[in-house]
């Protein structure tokens, strides 16, 4: 990841908690980080999204970017443009749907594409079942709104069947 002010590598990642509009994340080189942290210079308004967007734009033509921005997740409906602007994804499926597009960002941020840490001991839901769950919930909301309670209860049963019963465990702390 490059510094937001120059082309040097961003080795400092500063989260300002005090901005009136909420937390702001800065990605800066040593020089610019020192300016912000030590001299108390005004904090530039930026975000993860901005930094990510900058990285993306460096590697793509305008036309390619325009097409990419229109790409939309079939489950949550988020567009890549919306993601680039907010820095937040819309649903778990986005990691699959935008996988190829997210890879450069993930490499940039983490220098890795492979999780090597802890895994849930419960069998994780498959991508398909996660998509099904989101869709079923949406359908259930509509059924309730239309007062189709029989349909809603069928949908609820389907949701419960996918989710399964929680595993009983020992102590929390």
């Amino acid at each position, binding site marked *: 990841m490059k510094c937001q002010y120059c082309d040097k590598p961003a080795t400092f990642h500063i989260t300002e908690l005090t901005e009136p509009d909420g937390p702001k994340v800065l990605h800066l080189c040593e020089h610019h980080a020192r300016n912000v942290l030590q001299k108390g210079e005004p904090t530039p308004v930026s975000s993860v999204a901005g930094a990510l967007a900058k990285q993306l734009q460096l590697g793509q033509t305008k036309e390619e970017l325009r097409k990419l921005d229109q790409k939309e997740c079939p489950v949550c409906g988020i567009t890549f443009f919306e993601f680039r602007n907010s820095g937040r*994804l819309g649903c778990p499926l986005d990691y699959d749907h935008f996988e190829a597009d997210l890879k450069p960002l993930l490499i940039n941020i983490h220098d890795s594409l492979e999780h090597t840490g802890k895994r849930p001991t419960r069998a994780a839901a498959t991508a398909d079942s996660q998509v099904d769950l989101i869709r079923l919930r949406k359908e259930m909301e509509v059924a309730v709104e239309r007062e189709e309670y029989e349909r809603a209860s069928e949908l609820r049963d389907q949701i419960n069947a996918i989710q399964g019963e929680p595993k009983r465990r020992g102590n929390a702390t």
Partner: protein
Amino acid sequence: MKEATDLSVLAKNSGEWLRGTGPESDIVISSRIRLARNLAGFPFIRKCSPDDREKIQRQVRSRLENLPEWDEIPYVDITTLSEVDRQFLVERQLISREIADSEGSRAVAIDPSEQYSVMINEEDHLRIQVMHSGLDLISAWEQIDRIDDAIEGEVLYAFHSKFGYLTACPTNVGTGLRVSVMLHLPGLVITQQIEKVFRSMQRINVTVRGLYGEGSQYTGDFYQVSNQVTLGHTEKELLEMVGHEVVPRIIDYERKAREFLIEKGQQDLHDDVSRALGILSTARKISSEETMHYLSKVRMGVNLGLIDDVQLATINKLFIHTQPAHLQKLHGRVLTTSDRNVERASYLQRHLCGPADRADELN
């Protein structure tokens, strides 16, 4: 879990993480670990309908209630809280500013000792946090790992075989782990050696974050060091990077800076910290920033043995208890900035004046 609506009891006490003990507690205030988790089958928060948020909150709450040790854990519905109460929980570091200021169904479950809390519907569906006093990452990790396992036994997490725990922001994906160590570095600030620290960390991907102040001003002397990377390393590797590689090096620099200050002119240093204590003990009105500035000097003075009648735990608590929302909670009513400055000075006097400090009054 019990519904908690009155936070006054919390205001009078202080979390265990402020007790000023634990390894390296003269420099390390606290060790915090948080895990970001999302439930499978729901959109991330950005795309959640109000109904989704409500369902997530209800589901998490009911599932947490299945856990035997969670009976007595206070559960706070953030939507019902006043502005001051929300700010109070932010100052207490029990919730983030993001969840305090957001809209819609959201809540937090808080362990009475304040060692851990679970935010529901923050940027991710779940944000689990554990905070310990001093440099204590291993036991903080063991505790949060147990909590995570227990919750995971009750709910289905959004997990990807390749990308790990899926999070709303790609900066958290993988482990969802953020290790944060809060450091008090007045020696490096005074000697302007903080640049050396920056240089030493140049090739290590860590985040440096300032402790919040009342306004939008960066509050000097406190630095929070966290891992930036969350994907591609195990949790233990990330803990080691922050806890064994980065933080000890900074601690070493800070100790050397303090030694230098003492050698260079103990009288000057002693004068400086004594004046700071004098102002805090006698001022009739004082701002939050000024308080933080002088408390920082006094804290260093206590650690260097230049002030011997004030306890570290007292200073740690005063940093938090003199914040705006805390003052208002302790006073029992909403105060203007000007009234807060008067109340803050009075509060400081009550706890710093006299032959011995009055740490007991804070408990």
